[in-house]
């Protein structure tokens, strides 16, 4: 069944769960902000802003620590079951994904600093052309997954899982283009590799958003769709054959 919205008889339990949920959403908001700041710093070639993104990652890590402690404390003191247990497990997993998303933003900021190090000449605009659309897609995915988490919206969560396929395709196209540039002109290799790291970071951010969407489905429906898909993969002879090659 869907998760119960009724209040617990023990009010303090409700307060703890609400606090944890707010903490996770706050962490999500911070992660979203970090990606936007990192991309803006890249666009504007703003080194100070990039350094600030790197420094601010500690805020996300701090919230992760707090959320993890709260999860452990609720499990120890309340022994949650049913929907409450699924909520705690889903939020704990979401926290881990948000922390990695924060790392992704930090990675983009690091690459920005390397690209505009003042030593080599700045990269041509075409090297960076895939970054903005991919970043938009990734931030939208994160925004939607936090929205779906706040509203326990399974429909929305499922659309995020599909968006991730789109982002993966974008990443593959970007990679192909970057390889082409590198083959055409070996002087672009230095910058192109940094850009590869950036688009890879965005692709990974999409993966984490997909994970969050899967946690939401588990939370609401009690179904682990991630595991099911992996099993389907294993069952599928062609997939196995492809892996064997």
């Amino acid at each position, binding site marked *: 069944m869907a998760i119960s919205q009724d*209040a*617990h008889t023990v009010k303090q339990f409700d307060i703890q769960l609400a606090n944890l949920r707010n903490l996770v959403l706050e962490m999500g908001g911070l992660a979203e902000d970090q990606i936007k700041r990192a991309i803006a710093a890249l666009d504007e070639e703003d080194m100070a802003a990039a350094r600030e993104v790197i420094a601010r990652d500690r805020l996300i890590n701090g919230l992760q620590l707090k959320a993890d402690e709260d999860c452990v404390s609720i499990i120890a003191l309340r022994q*949650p*079951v*049913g*929907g409450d247990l*699924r909520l705690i497990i889903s939020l704990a997993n979401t926290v881990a994904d948000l922390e990695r998303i924060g790392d992704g933003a930090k990675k983009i900021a690091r690459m920005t600093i390397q690209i505009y190090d003042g030593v080599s000449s700045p990269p041509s605009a075409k090297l960076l052309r895939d970054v903005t659309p991919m970043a938009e897609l990734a931030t939208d995915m994160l925004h939607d997954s936090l929205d779906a988490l706040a509203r326990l919206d399974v429909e929305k969560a499922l659309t995020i899982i599909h968006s991730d396929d789109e982002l993966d395709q974008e990443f593959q196209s970007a990679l192909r283009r970057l390889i082409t540039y590198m083959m055409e002109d070996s002087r672009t290799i230095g910058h192109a590799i940094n850009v590869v790291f950036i688009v890879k970071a965005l692709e990974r951010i999409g993966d984490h958003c997909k994970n969050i969407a899967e946690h939401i489905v588990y939370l609401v429906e*009690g179904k682990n769709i991630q595991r099911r898909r992996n099993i389907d993969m294993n069952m599928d002879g062609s997939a196995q054959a492809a892996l064997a090659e």
Partner: protein
Amino acid sequence: MSTTAIETKVALDQVLNSGVEARKLSSVEVTDYDNRQTVGKITVDHPKMVCRGVNVYYGEKHAIKNVGLDIGANEVIAFIGPSGCGKSTFIRCLNRMNDTIPICRITGQIKLDQDDIYDKSIDVVQLRARVGMVFQKPNPFPKSIYENVAYGPRIHGMVNTKAELDDLVRDSLERAGLIKEVEKRMNEPGTSLSGGQQQRLCIARAIAVNPEVILMDEPCSALDPIATAKIEELIDELRENYTIVIVTHSMQQAARVSQRTAYFHLGDLIEVGDTDQIFTNPKHKLTEDYITGRFG
């Protein structure tokens, strides 16, 4: 009634009329008894007891409403629910303990293997030897530890010699995990033991008559956590040889000891399922609200 519900009812009638074992109904996921649904599968592949359409009335009060449930062989099934939900009433139907209450009336069918336990031909004393019971408060007889365990086998004529009786008493105490603590004090009164030991003595007394099913009505509610852990460990060991039905107010205990859990509410069997499923993903809102502590 929906088509599925009608099919279910027809199938159930066939089972009840022909004496075919309920395992043929294993595809039924939701059972509609006169429009009141029990969520989950009430049947199991190898039932020890089969209850169908069970109603219990205390005078005018309808205490158990049309409950159908299988109790699987060698499983531990936990009955949970708020006070007054009928779980104790229902467990007491399983060895006819309610017969002692004059205003109590029971309809429906309860089978132990193939025997209808409410059939006129059934000897209640023999039935209670097959379906033993352990109560909330340890209630040893005011006799020695030895006599507490020896009493049942003796009155049921299960042994011929003193040596056989000695063996049986020892064996029962050993199975109840009590032998080491009492072997040197067999002649001391049963009431001289601690609460947890007394409860294990009662379990030894119940298994001495070699029952097939053991009913436990809140067996740990008067015990401390250490004694509770010992009883729970014992329940897990006893499952190899016996079928165990346990009523408990501790949901954690139900989660720890049972393989299936049944949730009762105001005389209705609301939901039954694998314990794992009931405690991670219950299907009925009443079950979810109860196990997560939303008591309205």
